[in-house]
């Protein structure tokens, strides 16, 4: 049972990943189809010049930030090296204040959401297995709400941020150790 439960957690994550991939592929495909014309034009026109690596940005490069999206082929959300690849923030036992080390994660997603006003997210609050189910349901809700509050402060409209508590019912790690519990005291940022 425990094993099954664990597998389910994994398959859930995988399902989500597949969903993200699908979105990403759609994005990239769209990006490719529009840039392809440019690329092929650029490629044909620069055919003679072999050495300089062609592709990246036809526009001048100095713009430093991610918000130069129109020309960016890859959504930073899908960059495994980006801080946006981190979708979970963690909490202490019976606490709902985001761990200091994870605040940067929420802020990065906040900036992304500000820049991508069409995206919406669901924040899922989770708890470790210790204590009652109802109390943990309330605690998970407060954890999700804590993330939403942070996003709101960063300028994200709360209408774009749904929160749900899974209480202690959906542990990612079904172990009974301190490490397992720490992994389960968590809020996940799920892009819809």
């Amino acid at each position, binding site marked *: *049972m*425990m094993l*099954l*439960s*664990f*597998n*389910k*957690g994994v398959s*859930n994550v995988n*399902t989500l990943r597949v969903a993200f991939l699908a979105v990403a592929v759609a994005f990239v495909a769209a990006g490719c189809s529009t840039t392809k014309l440019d690329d092929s034009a650029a490629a044909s026109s620069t055919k003679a010049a072999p050495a300089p690596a062609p592709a990246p940005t036809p526009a001048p490069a100095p713009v430093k930030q991610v918000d130069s999206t129109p020309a960016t082929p890859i959504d930073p959300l899908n960059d495994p090296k980006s801080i946006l690849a981190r979708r979970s923030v963690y909490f202490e036992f*019976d606490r709902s204040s985001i761990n200091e080390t994870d605040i940067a994660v929420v802020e990065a997603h906040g900036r992304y959401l500000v820049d991508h006003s069409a995206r919406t997210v669901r924040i899922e609050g989770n708890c470790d297995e*210790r*204590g*009652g*189910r*109802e*109390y943990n*349901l*309330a*605690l998970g*809700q*407060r954890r999700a*709400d804590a993330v939403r509050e942070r996003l709101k402060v960063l300028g994200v409209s709360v209408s774009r941020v749904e*929160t*749900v*508590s*899974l*209480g202690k*019912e*959906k542990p990612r790690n079904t172990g*009974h150790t301190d490490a397992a519990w720490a992994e389960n005291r968590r809020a996940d940022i799920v892009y819809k």
Partner: protein
Amino acid sequence: MNRTERISRLAYNRGNMPLFPADRDPPRSFRISASRSSSTPPQRPQGSLRARQLIIASVVLARAPFSWLGRRLAPAPAQLAAAALTMLGLLAGSPVRAQMTVEITGVGSQQFPIAVANFFSDSALPEDMAAVIRADLARSGMFRIVEAGPNPIAESAGVNFPDWKSRGADTLAIASAVRLADNRTEIRYRLYDSVKGNQLDGLAYLSSGADLRRIAHRIADRIYESLTGIKGVFSTRIAYVVQYSASRYELQIADADGANPLTALKSPEFIISPTWSPDGNSLAYVSFEKHKTVVYLHNLATGQRRAIASFPGSNSGPAFSPDGRSMALVLTRDGNSEIYTVGLDGGNLRRLTFDPSIDTEPVFSPDGAWIYFTSDRSGGPQIYRMPAAGGDAQRVTFQGDYNISPRISPDGKSLAFIARRSDQFQVAVIDLASEQQLTITDTVRDEAPTFAPNSRLILYATEVGGRGILALASTDGRARARLSGPNGDVREPTWGPFSK
């Protein structure tokens, strides 16, 4: 009124008597047999999260046929003389009464020693009724079962009282099952005091055959009440949730001993916080089947159910008012977890708490005057109470920094809850009059205590050997038992009301 009832009542009225012996029973397990698959549709294959369908199976709870009430049996002729003597003794303000009372109320009181002989039957009984009765009595912690031997003893048989007395069986139950011409079975039972040599109780039941186990529980209830003066709970029902896998949950209903489980609801998503309506006809619970928590009211006789609370945000923590007309619950519709009451028709929603902290797990006191609940307004979670119509809350628990899941005993005298101490979660009981607090379990991952309708036992969920099980403890912490099912994690028990 017969002698036993009077004596019992007297004994009961002494109050504060220790109900269980100092010696603790070793943990006992018994089997929760598999669901009757015929009553539920087969499990469908699981699809994606969204494609999975809820499979709802209805449970029809049979009404108790009149025969369960039984027909009182007059003392057998051989016992008439002894009964007459007893009656004289009673009228004289008797030492008989005193002796019975001392057994229950003395310091370090004993268990009642009782022999339950195998039933005499003219045809094979589908249930070992005597074994059911023995298990019931032993599980209560208030009886010591004396070996009665393999031979059945007919209800009409003469009883050699000195012999039973010398074997340590101060009381003896015997019974016969007789097949009638119309194919029904008559169960005739008698309870004897072998010290005094008289009949304490005698009753006849008519059975269609399918309810023999239930009649055995009824007889155990009679024996329990005859000797303790407290109403028995062996013929009541419990409900609980079983998780078989990450995507298979069932809400089940079973007899108080875990037998005859029926599935009321199957779901691919979690079910928590089931609770019985005061009339025993319905369960309210929280289901995540819509990928958010919604409170449902489920009629067990029809299998029909409807959402009582499906507001934006989380809907949870249902608790019926004692009159069964309204419900307290927890909603996050206005922000954080707050307590509300709502009529069972869905109208008259009222918010009772206004606090930025968590307010959750409301329960009504049996008189309907108070709502006890969990709040972390002081930092960690503690138990509070407020008037049932709302108002200032008073803190109730003060020991430790984590106390949750309050339940008030049906007699209104005790508060049971889960207390965390050094990362151990255990059922604790506070006597509301004396404010004395007692930890009553020896398990350390306890959750969801629920009182038996007679307030003497508490059923709760815990974890032993990595599995969720249900366990029993007497309210005074002296007796304990464990219920083990064949598979799955069992949790979220709720004890139903007295059966009708």
